[in-house]
C-alpha cells in the first residue's frame, strides 16, 4: 500500500463524503446548522482541501482558500494518523475555534465513520443500508481517482485505459463521472453527458451489497445486478482499479 495514496483517499475521497451527511442523518443536520465555519487542511506532500460547515450544509472543495481554521499536517502519514485517531494536526489559524474542531467537527467525522464501518446490527436498518451504500459508493469512486494516480498497480491500469468518460451510477441517483485518458482518472459528481462506458447499479441496495463484499462482483455482473455497457477496455481496467479500493478504504 502506498502511503501517499492512502492519505489522498482520506483527504479527497473520504472527507468529501461529509457533504452527504446532513441529508442522511438528523444529528449531522443539527451539527451543521450553525454559523458557517471553514476549515482548511494543508497536508505536506499531498495538497490542500477545505470544508465549509454551516447553514445546514457541508461543502467540500479541493485546494486552499479563506478559512477560519487552518490545520497543518506535515506529511501524508500524519494525515493518516489523524484519521486513525493517533495524531493531531497543527493549528496554523483559529486557535480560538479549537473547541468547534474537537466538538461538533469531530462528532461529524464519528457519524460518518459509523456509516462507513457497518455492523450487522446497524445493517438491519434499511435507512442505514441506504446511507452506507451512498457514502461507500461516493468514497469508492473518488478513491479510484486517487489510486489511479498514486498506487503503482493503479497507475498501470490507468495507463491502459483509453480516453473516455465512464458513468458510475445508481438508477434514480446518485451518479458520478470518471474521466480516463493519458494515464489519469478524474472523478466528479454527476453523470457525464456522453459516457463511453457505463457501470450502473439497479439500486443503492445492490451497490451497497457489492461494496460491502456481500455479493461477489463477478456473480453480480453475471446476474445483471450491475449493468456494464459500452467500451469494455475502459470497464475492464476500471474494475481492476476498483479491486484496489479495499486496500485503501477498509
Amino acid at each position, binding site marked *: 500500500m502506498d502511503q501517499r495514496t492512502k492519505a489522498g483517499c482520506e483527504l479527497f475521497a473520504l472527507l468529501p463524503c461529509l457533504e452527504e451527511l446532513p441529508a442522511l442523518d438528523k444529528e449531522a443536520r443539527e451539527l451543521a446548522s450553525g454559523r458557517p465555519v471553514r476549515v482548511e487542511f494543508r497536508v505536506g506532500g499531498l495538497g490542500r482541501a477545505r470544508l465549509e460547515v454551516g447553514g445546514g450544509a457541508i461543502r467540500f472543495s479541493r485546494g486552499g482558500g479563506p478559512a477560519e481554521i487552518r490545520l497543518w499536517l506535515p506529511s501524508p502519514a500524519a494525515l493518516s494518523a489523524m484519521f486513525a485517531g493517533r495524531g493531531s494536526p497543527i493549528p496554523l489559524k483559529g486557535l480560538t475555534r479549537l473547541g468547534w474542531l474537537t466538538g461538533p467537527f469531530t462528532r461529524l467525522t464519528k457519524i460518518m465513520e459509523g456509516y462507513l464501518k457497518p455492523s450487522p446490527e446497524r445493517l438491519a436498518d434499511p435507512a442505514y443500508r441506504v446511507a452506507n451504500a451512498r457514502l461507500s459508493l461516493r468514497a469508492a469512486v473518488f478513491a479510484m481517482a486517487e489510486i489511479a494516480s498514486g498506487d503503482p*498497480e493503479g497507475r*498501470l*491500469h490507468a495507463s*491502459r485505459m483509453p480516453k*473516455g468518460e465512464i458513468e458510475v451510477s445508481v438508477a434514480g441517483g446518485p451518479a458520478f463521472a470518471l474521466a480516463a485518458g493519458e494515464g489519469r482518472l478524474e472523478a466528479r459528481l454527476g453523470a457525464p453527458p456522453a*459516457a*463511453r*462506458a457505463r457501470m450502473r447499479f439497479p439500486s443503492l441496495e445492490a451497490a451497497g451489497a457489492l461494496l460491502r463484499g456481500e455479493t*461477489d462482483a*463477478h*456473480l453480480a*455482473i*453475471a*446476474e*445483471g445486478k450491475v*449493468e*456494464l*455497457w*459500452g*467500451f*469494455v*477496455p475502459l*470497464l*475492464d481496467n476500471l474494475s*481492476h482499479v476498483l*479491486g484496489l479500493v479495499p486496500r485503501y478504504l477498509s
Partner: protein
Amino acid sequence: MKTYEYPRSRELLARAARVLPGGLPGHLGPVSGCYMPVEAYPIFSSRAQGAYFWDLDGNRFVDYMCAYGPNILGYGDPDVDGAALAQLREGNCVSAPSARTVELAELMVDTVDMADWAFFCKNGGDTTTMALMVARAATGRKKVVLTRGGYHGVAPWAQKEGLPGVTSEDLANVLYVDFGDYEGLERLFAERKGEIACFMSTPYYHPVFVDNRLPPEGWWAKVRELCTREGAVLAIDDVRCGFRLDVRGSDRHYGFKADLMCFCKALANGWNVSALCGIEALRPAASDLMYTGSYWNSAAPMAAAIACVRKMRELDVAKVCTRLGTELTEGLKAEARKQGFELVVSGEPSMWYMRLAGDDSLEAHQAWVAECVRRGVFFTNHHNLFISAAMTRADVDFTLEAAAEAFVSLRKLGPEGVRRAIAEGRA
C-alpha cells in the same frame, strides 16, 4: 421472429454461484465482456448438433462462436465422435499410451508443412508454454517477444502485469512489440542482442475489442529473416487460426515457415487435445524438456483428432469456411446498410471480427448483437466469430433475417431503448 428468454439458465446460474467462483468463470462466463447486456444471452447449453446448440430453455442458436473455435466440422460430427467412441471402448487414459499417439503425430507431420515432429498436450496454453520452453532450451536465452494485445493462454507469463495473481517477476523476461512494427522488432533485437529466445505471435492480429489486422506486406518474410539472423525461434500460435486459413498451417497461408506451431481448438473438433509441431533442429530441445500431464496421452481425443484432420483435409475445410464466412459477412454488411448503419468487418472471413462504424462507445454494436442473440443467432460482442463447415446457406439466410430485424430494432429504439426492452423482457 420470436425473441428468447432464459429462465432456466438463470436458475442454474444461481446454483452455480454457490459452488463455482463467479458462477461461471473464465472466457465463457458473462464477465468476459462478451455478453453485454448479460440478460440477452443464454448461459448454459443442454445439447449441440451440427451448427447449433440449444440452451436449457430449449432455444436454438446458430452458433458463430463454435465453442470459441473448436467446432469446425459441426457439433457431434459422426466421423470424429465415432472414432473417439470406438477408441473409448478400447481404452483411453492408460498407463501405456496407445498407437493413436504415433498415428496422430505421423498425420500432423504429413499435414502441417513445417512439422518434422509433434508433441501432444491438452490446451492451447500448454503448447504456447512448451514453445517458450523449447526456445529457451534450444537457445540458452531467456527473453520472449510477444505482440501487444496478443493472447497466448492464461499462464502468468502470457498475461498482463497488474492482473490478479500475476507478478512483475512472472513477466520479467517478456518484451512487447506492436504487431506489424518491423522496425520496433528489429530495434528490440538490437537492444537485447543475444538475449531473445523466441518471437511468438498469432499469424495475424486478432485480439478482442479492436479491429483485427492482417499482416502488412512483407511482414512475415522480414520477421522470418530477422529471427534466423538473430538465432531466435519463430513460434506461431495457431491455436485460434489453425486449420481455418490453411489446413497445412497458417504460416503457409502467409508464405513463410515457422520453427514451432501451436495447435488446439479445431484440431479435434472439440475433443481435448492440443499439439506443438516443430522443425528438426528443435527436436533435441523438445525431447529434453520435463513437460507432461496426467491426461496428455489419452487416446480418445487423439482418435478424434485423427478423424478430424483427415476430414478437414478431404473437405478443404479452410476454403469451405472462408466461402461461407464471405457470404455471411457480405450479407450482414448489406443488411446494415439498409438501415443506415455501416458494419466494419476485419480479419479473415472464416473467423471475422465486426463492429458498427461511428460507435465510439460500442453500445450500438452491443445492442445489435444482443438483438441477434435473442433471435437465435449466437454472436458475442467483441470477440472474433467463427464459421463451421456444418453451416449451410439456410443458416446464413436465417442469420441475415435475424440480423435485419436486429438492425431495425436498433434504428427504432437506439441502444438505450434496446437495453430497456431486453431488461423488461419485451420483444
